[in-house]
């Protein structure tokens, strides 16, 4: 059976015993990993996951399985219905998604979905060779395939999607530099170019100086900006967090600088992933921040029902407890050239990557984390040298607040974040102040 047939079969097996929705993911996934300039781990997987949710008189249960044979699907259905009958009613059960068409087609490239390990090895080799003797490490992954959805209210969707990502570093004995590319096609990945960029940063950041902690003007790379967006989204633009009183977001308020516009938009040319969510709702564009004003939140059906609105199509697996999460975030670019940003800094820091960020309080969005893979001191408009990694403790909302954004770059691209690849695009951003609370030695 193909994934659509599996989905239909599950709905058939449930029959009229329950409301039911099922998503079937048949994505093939392969990942080639390298370290110390050779491939050391190389994996592939024929994936299959059947995710079922049933509601028996508002008693809701979920079940998943990796089995697609009839006995396996029957067991899945019986387990879910049995569990639902034994639990208390769910007062927030929103019911099933009504039939609705996709807002945008999925991005799919057959060559990416079927990329073989030789293709990945060739790009990895190019990345390593571009380092000119530096130590390369990272991964190149390719994935793609069909995902189907069906529910007993008549919604029925199938899409094919793909993604390719190369993320790597080059290392000298004392420093490292990183580079990242992701897209719906392997054509988005140029191993040699990425390897050269990572190697250049690694060489430039060798011989670091320790810098005193304190507040510094900063130029943040797209990777740093992506991580900031991830935290704002997970803890702030998640409607469940907002309804629970844990979000920083105050809708209608100018919480950010007017230069900041952040949207979730699957129709964006750069976006990858699925065009619908786990509840079968097509993803809709939402503007979380428009010219600095907090405008909207990401909803699933559950949070939307509570406030009498519609789902935005951002339900995620397991999201009944966590809430909705936007997975196609775009920090809209400005007009500034990143080179000009650096030239305008009297004394500040250029940060290429944030690392291991963790939130201290969701309401204030105070986050601590470190810099990694290249941190540079800027003096009198020029890179004066590399500095050791620094720890920061900073409210992300405050960091982007009115008057503190000195420039938004014209260089938006898909960028990695603390949450992984394929979810965010961002430009370089220039901020007046960032609070560094510790150096490499404490």
């Amino acid at each position, binding site marked *: 059976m193909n994934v659509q047939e599996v989905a239909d079969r599950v709905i058939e097996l449930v029959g009229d015993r329950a409301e039911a929705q099922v998503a079937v993911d048949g994505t093939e996934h*392969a990942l080639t*990993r390298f*370290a*110390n300039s*050779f*491939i*050391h*781990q*190389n*994996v*592939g*997987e*024929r*994936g299959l996951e059947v995710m079922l949710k049933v509601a028996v008189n508002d008693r809701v249960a*979920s*079940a*998943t*399985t*990796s*089995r697609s044979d009839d006995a396996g699907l029957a067991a899945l259905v019986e387990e879910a219905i049995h569990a639902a009958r*034994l*639990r*208390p009613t*769910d*007062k*927030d059960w929103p019911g099933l998604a009504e039939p609705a068409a996709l807002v945008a087609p999925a991005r799919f490239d057959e060559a990416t979905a079927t990329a073989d*390990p030789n293709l990945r*090895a060739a790009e990895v080799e190019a990345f390593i060779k571009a380092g000119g003797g530096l*130590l390369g*490490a*990272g*991964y190149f*992954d390719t994935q793609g395939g069909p995902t189907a959805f069906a529910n007993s209210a008549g919604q029925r969707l199938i899409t094919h999607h793909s993604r390719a990502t190369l993320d*790597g570093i080059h*290392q000298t004995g004392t420093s490292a530099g*990183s580079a990242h590319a992701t897209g719906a096609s392997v054509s988005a990945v140029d191993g040699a170019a990425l390897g050269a960029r990572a190697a250049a940063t690694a060489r430039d950041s060798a011989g670091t100086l320790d810098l005193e902690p304190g507040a510094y003007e900063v130029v943040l790379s797209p990777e740093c900006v992506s991580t900031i967006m991830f935290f704002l989204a997970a803890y702030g633009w998640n409607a469940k967090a907002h309804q*629970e*009183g*844990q979000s920083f977001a105050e809708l209608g308020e100018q919480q950010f600088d007017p230069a900041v516009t952040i949207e979730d938009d699957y129709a964006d040319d750069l976006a990858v992933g699925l065009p619908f969510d786990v509840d079968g709702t097509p993803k809709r564009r939402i503007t979380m921040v428009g010219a600095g004003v907090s405008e909207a939140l990401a909803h699933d059906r559950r949070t939307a029902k509570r406030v009498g609105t519609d789902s935005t199509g951002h339900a995620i697996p397991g999201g*009944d*407890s966590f809430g909705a999460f936007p997975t196609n975030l775009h920090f809209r670019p400005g007009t500034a050239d990143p080179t000009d940003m650096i030239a305008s800094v009297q004394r500040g820091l250029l940060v290429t990557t944030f*690392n*291991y*960020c*963790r*939130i*201290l*309080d969701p*309401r204030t969005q105070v986050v*601590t984390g*470190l810099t*990694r893979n290249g941190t540079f001191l800027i003096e009198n408009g020029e890179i004066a040298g590399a500095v050791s990694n620094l*720890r920061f*403790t*900073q409210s992300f909302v405050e960091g982007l607040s009115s008057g503190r954004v000195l420039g938004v770059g014209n260089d938006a691209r898909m960028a990695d974040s603390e949450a992984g690849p394929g979810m965010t695009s961002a430009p370089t951003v220039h901020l007046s102040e960032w609070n560094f*609370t*510790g150096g*490499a*030695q*404490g």
Partner: protein
Amino acid sequence: MFDYAQAAVEGALAAGASYADARAMVVRQQGLSCLNENIEGLDYDESAGIGVRALIGSSWGFYATPDLTEKSARAAGAQAAAIALASGLAAGEPLRLLDVPVVTDHYETPFAEAPFDVALSEKADLLVAVTRTMSQVEGIGLAQASMRFWDTEKYFVSSQGHRISQHLVEAGGEMAATAIGESETQRRSYPQSFGQFETGGYEVIRRFDLAANAGRVAEEAVALLTAPECPSGTLDLILESSQLALQIHESVGHATELDRILGWEAAFAGTSWLELDKLGTLQFGSPLMNITADATLPGSLATFGYDDEGTPAQPVDIVKDGIWVGVLSGRDSAAIAGLPPGGMVRGDGYNRLPMVRMTNVGMLPGDSSLEEIISETSDGVYMATNRSWSIDDKRLNFQFGCEAGWEVKDGKLGRMVRNPTYTGISPQFWGSLDMVAGEEERVYWGIPNCGKGQPMQAGHTGHPAPPARFRDVRVGVKG
């Protein structure tokens, strides 16, 4: 299931692998979560399949399939070998595997009450009841409780002749109360934030006695909203045992993973500040610091019979009397380092490549007690229950936040303080350890979500820890 694993191994060998092993697995999970008396999530997951790894030269090739047939298993073995072969374009020195005893054996987690046999209604009733108790405390906005269970059957076959089956049972859960203030939130959890997990059955949940602790947890969360801020400065720091467990996990466990030390995780998880040529001589901490990695501890989360390379579970000294003496290793990494294999390689399900994972990495007890530690502290802070954690890619520079703190003045526990944080550098911090509580206060803490590897894997790790004191630590880091 052994037959499928055997077919996969044969498929890999026929396709050119110099060594191959396979795991056929069935993993069942059940989870319940409750918010404010409403069961929000009830899920049951079953994954079954086979994962085979093939060694050719310097690279592992790995392939997984959910199709449990002999034909698919054999094809998966061939595919794993083909993937390994492709790595030859960017090859390194050939990997060598250290020998371990070739055995046919079975291991079973001891448990009293099979968690999947306990009625869902009983589990749901408990969660609803404790969230009701927490919600009844004025000021609590969110009362959450959850539990999760795993039942894992694993069948391991290697080309060297291993045939090992294991049945692992794990259980755990938590509850948390969140008070919503004007500008911030405060939360208290029990038994620890993000849950306490152990090997064993439903008796693990019963032992927590959630009901008896619900009221206290909620009252503390509300009290934190109006508590004074944690003082800033350099003070003595007393850590409650679950926070020390996470400190061990982040700054000792990960730092001593041999794959990190060898650079295999450099691009993602990171490397380590430890260098192999200093093993046996480096002063990691004070003489009171004794850390072991012991996969045989009854009830601890990372207790099993064999790892996913067929190496028997065993205790390994990691830090002895403050000196770094051991690493976390597998058969390939240990061969490079010239060390015996530690039996610490595990994969997150059938479809993930096994890699070096912490077992029960914990601190041996000292001869003090929390009461004595507090009585001998003139100016310090006692911090309990993790709230945030961050550490650099070499595992040197860390900053932790806890849910609650208490001033300690002149040998007495004083006011509760909110937003307690501390920061430090690993060897200096561990060098300042000067009091460690005894066995009766040591808890086998378990963490079920240790992220590592690409594709990401969630590891189940254990961390026995007693309360302990560290001198002159920077606390109260402000944003």
